[in-house]
């Protein structure tokens, strides 16, 4: 069946809703099938649930649906029962029978599987009452944990493809671009470049062949929002790419995705096939004269390929080394044609903006950073997971209210945002409202949204060393400052952390940091020294304690017991 007009699409949506309303199915069991929960056996749980349902012969009353990531990965596998809105955590396969017998058949809530609030030890029944979800605003990850990502009809039922319908039938290329520009949406991959402006520049290039690329090469270790979006809502990204393609005049979209994400690849692939079957990708989409199709290219494990020019080289089958800019990809990109590269999360924000308008979107967030941002909260924190908050939320709210504070009652020390390109943020800056500019102002950056919480047991010199090792390994070797500079910096850090460093090494490290930062070709090298610079700024004492030849004057109140301090060797 082809959906050849907007009316047809609306008709399918209505039918779908009708069918659900008339259905005898009274309860739906939503089960998280994101990578995190699958790793803790949610697939097996699903199998057993279906088995029990069959045995109890209640298949006509209850349906098990696998969904994308709920975000609450620490408590996985997660299971939610609708319409009761009961949220079960850490469900293991052998709980399946209890859930069916007690909850579904007898209507009794299984108390022991409810989430227990760590501070008050109270068990919480509903998702909306959980502190983890209370302050969140789920926009980009709106459909994750709500719909079955492998069923296009469920997506259509939840307003899917209606933004594309609106764009194709009611809006011109310019009005789409205007709407995105007015919304104030900025690139969510970390750079923060205004998306509407990027689209406009690409649109204004001459020529009929243009490309739109979705950057799903999520290399930041510890960030997994792009993967969760692709796993939980692949159609949302496909729809947004088609909208972008229409706006800039591209007929071909490419998703560049990490080969390390097999689940995301397979869900995206099946979503593309479903969309093609329905005619939502291909020729004459929704009966208009707009043609658009998407293919995907696999990465092969190189962090630098997240940089747009490197990504384009990799798409062309070459070594993923970055190029000099200008020319920017918007002028000369994939095979020399104008190309627009956007991040997965940026795309995920597009359909809601089109449907609900730029005024609504720009009312969320801060003056210079509109909308929401998804963060991957990890490290020494109680509630590890994926959270989406409006811009302007403070780090304290994210770490203490949503994240539930530090594990095992330890002391908060710092939070690293922006992954290997960012810096540490300490206690004193925790009340800064998060947006692109504020984070830069306090010496870190937004980055792709990884947020690693560190506690008093973590050595900051070690952290800097860890990140430098990462960037050293991932440096593509094209430009000298990055190739050799990061290696030398790593060696110095090893020497210092072994307690063999001297004050001269610290000076050299400092000097090298600024040199690499100022003279590298691409973002990887330019930001690689950030972890060193920021840990030196905030945790100078920790470096000094490891230096052997220094007579370091311990400031009052900051002194820590360490035999090396104050002893000249």
């Amino acid at each position, binding site marked *: 069946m082809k959906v050849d007009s907007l009316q047809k699409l609306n008709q399918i949506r209505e039918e779908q809703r009708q069918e659900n309303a008339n259905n005898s199915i009274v309860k739906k069991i939503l089960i998280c099938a994101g*990578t995190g929960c699958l790793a803790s056996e949610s697939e097996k749980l699903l199998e057993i649930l279906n088995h029990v349902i069959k045995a109890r012969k209640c298949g006509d009353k209850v349906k098990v649906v696998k969904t994308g990531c709920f975000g609450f990965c620490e408590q996985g596998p997660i299971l939610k029962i609708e319409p009761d809105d009961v949220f079960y955590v850490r469900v293991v396969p052998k709980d399946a029978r209890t859930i069916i017998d007690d909850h579904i058949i007898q209507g009794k809530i299984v108390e022991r599987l409810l989430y227990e609030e760590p501070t008050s030890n109270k068990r919480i029944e509903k998702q909306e009452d959980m502190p983890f979800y209370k302050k969140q605003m789920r926009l980009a990850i709106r459909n994750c944990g709500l719909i079955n990502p492998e069923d296009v009809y469920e997506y259509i039922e939840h307003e899917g493809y209606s933004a594309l319908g609106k764009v194709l039938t009611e809006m011109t290329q310019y009005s789409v671009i205007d709407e995105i520009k007015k919304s104030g949406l900025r690139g969510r991959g970390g750079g923060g470049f205004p998306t509407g402006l990027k689209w406009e520049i690409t649109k204004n290039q001459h020529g009929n062949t243009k490309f739109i690329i979705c950057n799903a090469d999520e290399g930041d270790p510890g960030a997994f929002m792009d993967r969760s979006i692709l796993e939980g809502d692949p159609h949302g990204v496909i729809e947004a790419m088609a909208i972008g393609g229409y706006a800039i005049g591209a007929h071909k979209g490419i998703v560049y995705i990490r080969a390390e994400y097999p689940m995301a690849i397979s869900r995206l692939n099946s979503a593309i096939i479903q969309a093609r079957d329905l005619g939502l990708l291909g020729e004459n989409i929704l009966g208009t004269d707009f043609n658009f199709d998407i293919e995907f290219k696999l990465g092969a494990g190189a962090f630098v390929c997240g940089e747009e020019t490197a990504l384009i080289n990799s798409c062309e089958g070459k070594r993923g080394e970055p190029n000099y800019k200008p020319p920017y990809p918007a002028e000369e990109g994939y095979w020399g044609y104008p190309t627009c590269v956007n991040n997965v999360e940026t795309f995920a924000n597009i359909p809601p903006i089109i449907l609900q308008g730029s005024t609504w979107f720009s009312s969320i967030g801060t003056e210079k950073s509109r909308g929401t941002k998804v963060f991957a909260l990890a490290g020494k924190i109680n509630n590890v997971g994926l959270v989406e908050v409006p811009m302007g939320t403070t780090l304290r709210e994210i770490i203490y209210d949503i994240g539930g504070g530090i594990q095992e009652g330890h002391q908060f020390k710092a939070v690293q945002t922006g992954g290997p390109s960012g810096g540490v943020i300490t206690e004193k800056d925790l009340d800064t409202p998060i947006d692109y500019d504020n984070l830069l102002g306090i010496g870190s950056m937004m980055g792709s949204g990884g947020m690693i919480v560190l506690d008093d047991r973590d050595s900051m010199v070690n952290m800097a060393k860890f990140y430098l090792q990462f960037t050293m390994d991932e440096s593509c070797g094209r430009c000298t400052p990055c190739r050799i500079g990061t290696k030398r910096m790593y060696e110095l850090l090893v020497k210092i952390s072994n307690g063999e460093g001297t004050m001269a090494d610290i000076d050299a490290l400092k000097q090298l940091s600024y040199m690499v930062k100022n003279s590298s070709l691409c973002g990887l090298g330019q930001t690689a020294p950030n972890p060193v610079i920021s840990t030196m700024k905030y945790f100078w004492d920790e470096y000094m304690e490891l230096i052997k030849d220094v007579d370091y004057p311990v400031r009052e109140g900051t002194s820590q017991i360490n035999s090396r301090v104050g002893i000249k060797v």
Partner: protein
Amino acid sequence: MTRPQEISVVDTDLELPQEGFIELEGYIDNIKTTKGALIEILHKAQEIFGYLPRDVQLYIARKLGIPGVEVFGVVSFYSYFNVKPMGKHTISVCMGTACFVRGADKIINKLKDNLGIESNEITEDGLFSLKDVRCIGACGLAPVILVDDKVYGRVKEDQVNEIIDKYR
């Protein structure tokens, strides 16, 4: 000019299966355009052979009519491609930041001690190879190790032996 046949040297003891080359040839012949498809082809080749030895790289180069060095340049650039054969079981330790702060470095050192190999090496009996990988995205279960496709979460140092022994 050296003819391609003369460059070809089998540098491993392992015989490469002929059927593999036939399958690879069929794959290359069937893709729409080979322009820009080198990485795809290498993914396929690695799927068939398990790794990308010199002969496979040269075969692809000849098939596409490009210099062998161009293929090697791409293979050596990306960490996903292996040029050495892998063990029967691959143990991957997640070295993402979330796992690192929860002690992944201790886990990998323990594994190295136990197996007597470094990362990207294979044990003498060919049973295990060890890899350190970037974030696999199961940060809620940190630290995480993967044996083949099976995920072990919240791994403690003393559990490492137990896990390996299951595969011996």
